[in-house]
């Protein structure tokens, strides 16, 4: 029975990880239709921010929950101003420019920090479940992922900022006519998406450690999750993460991690074949 509990936890963890790495991208892609191929690097930068801050004496929670999103949020706003804004509407060019940006980030981080893995230990230790020990931190991550989704939901649905953002995304001209500045909204949205991604990077740093090249591992999964999720940011991310997280973790448990990854991709391809507009293109339509 404890095996079932542990397995359940592994699956929840897998889902939570996907949610964390995807939600920032879902906001940027879902609301701005911008494909940010530097997404993995935002995660990586968040991880480095958290680790560097912790190694300089900052409390680990502050480093992960405050420093990481702040640093990456600022980087995101700068990137939006200098690059993304210039290429609005040119989807392929945005793809390519952000790819160049990702190479740039990898290069800069390698230059500054070198190629070795930097790490910080996972806080909170472990707890026993039957015969197994599980990391408390991983449990906390599941809770944090859910909390983040809840906060975004509340902000989008219940606050003025959220309303403005949603309105601008639907109809920028109308929003402008009502006195809202679309460029400001775009910069803020991109910044928020980047910050969320930085946060995820920071939170995941104790678990996987960071290399300058760690972004590559995440970018494909995040995109697959977002695209399979469909147009509804939260419902889509949650649904796709649940589906793929389960497939990935279960396959990994019973075979190898590589088969788990391949399984995720296969599930995505099959899903897109059946539902070309993602899950929320058909189900849960009209939800956030």
């Amino acid at each position, binding site marked *: 029975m404890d095996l079932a509990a542990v397995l359940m936890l592994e699956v929840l963890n897998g889902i939570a990880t996907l949610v964390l790495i995807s939600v920032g991208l879902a906001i940027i892609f879902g609301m701005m239709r911008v494909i940010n191929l530097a997404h993995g690097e935002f995660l990586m930068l968040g991880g480095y921010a958290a680790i560097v801050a912790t190694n300089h004496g900052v409390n680990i929670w502050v480093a992960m929950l405050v420093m990481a999103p702040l640093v990456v949020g600022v980087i995101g706003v700068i990137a939006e101003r200098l690059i993304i804004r210039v290429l609005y509407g040119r989807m392929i060019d945005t793809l390519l420019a952000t790819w160049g940006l990702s190479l740039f980030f990898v*290069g*800069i981080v390698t230059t500054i920090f070198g190629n070795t893995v930097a790490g910080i230990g996972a806080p909170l230790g472990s707890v026993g479940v039957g015969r197994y020990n599980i990391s408390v931190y991983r449990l906390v991550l599941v809770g944090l992922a859910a909390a983040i989704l809840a906060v975004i939901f509340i902000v989008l649905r219940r606050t003025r900022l959220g309303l403005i953002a949603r309105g601008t995304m639907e109809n920028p001209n109308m929003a402008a006519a009502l006195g809202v500045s679309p460029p400001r909204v775009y910069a803020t949205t991109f910044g928020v998406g980047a910050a969320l991604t930085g946060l995820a990077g920071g939170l995941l740093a104790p678990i996987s450690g960071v290399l300058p090249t760690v972004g590559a591992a995440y970018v494909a999964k995040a995109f697959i999750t977002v695209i399979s999720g469909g147009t509804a940011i939260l419902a889509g991310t949650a649904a796709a993460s649940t589906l793929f997280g389960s497939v990935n973790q279960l396959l990994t448990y019973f075979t190898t991690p590589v088969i788990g990854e391949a399984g995720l991709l296969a599930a995505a391809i099959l899903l897109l074949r059946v539902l070309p507009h993602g899950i929320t293109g058909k189900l849960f339509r009209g939800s956030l």
Partner: protein
Amino acid sequence: MIGGRWSPGIVLTTVAMVGIALGVPQVVDQFGLLQLTVFAAMCILALSLGFVWGYGGILCFGQSAFFGLGGYTYAVTAINVGESTLATILAVVVPAVFAALLGYFMFYGRLSDVYLGVITLSVTLIFFNLMNSTAGDAYRVGKARLNGFNGMPSLPTLNVPGDPGRLLDPAETFYLVMAFLVIVYVGLHGLLASHFGRVVVAIRENETRCELLGYDVRLHKLLVFTIGGGIAGLAGCLFANWGAFVSPNVFSLTMTSQIIIWVIVGGLGTLLGPIIGCLIMQYLATTLGTQQLANTNLIFGIIFLAFVLLVPRGIVPSLRRLGARAVGPARVRDLA
């Protein structure tokens, strides 16, 4: 180019390539020859993406998947069979078949551009992870151990067909690779001039209109993708031969980024462009690789960004436009 007239640009490029192929071994030393051989193999790879993306309009971000498959297929087959002819043939066929399967899912599922890019990128990354995890004796295909991240060394290199003892020397290998390059370049232009090729270009212009004329767009894209996969596989085989070595790095994000950068820098929508882009970037990578001043990713990233933001068409088309302005407006299509 209806009617099969070949533009002067294409003829000139072909002649230049043949000239280089014949002349270079006479004037360049062994080391230089080996360098140029790998450059030429990479040009073939660049052509594959130039064709698939520039003419087919297919956003393939994982062309390295077929490149790597070609390399590994060659390695596994050559080790098992001991003779390179079958290995080379399979190195083209296996990636092509894989491309056909993947393409079937993508094109008949009517996925949009963006999704194609992400899925193809994921495929190459999965191969990367997959091959990296194959260390240990358990992972072997016949006599060939895959060796995971260490890669497969000491591959049997190309021999004269039917005579496994008679390996090709560097000059002969160079001739062969250049021959392949010329064949692929001329062949692709020939294909583009054919009925099939005209339809492919038209699809890139307006898919709906092509459908309305009765052409099966999905099938055309599938064929383009498959051919591109086979050509990339050939390049992979030649690359594996060059170093007598293949490792999972052929599938890496770095590798697939490079191919895209070659095409962007050289120019989308031409065949000469990717070749030029490839040569420039390869040369840069080689010179930069030997100095410690700045990280390669950093520099490539900046170049990539600069080109997308400032010279989005790439070198060859931009030069053409300048040339056209100087010489006078003319239809600047298919010049090279």
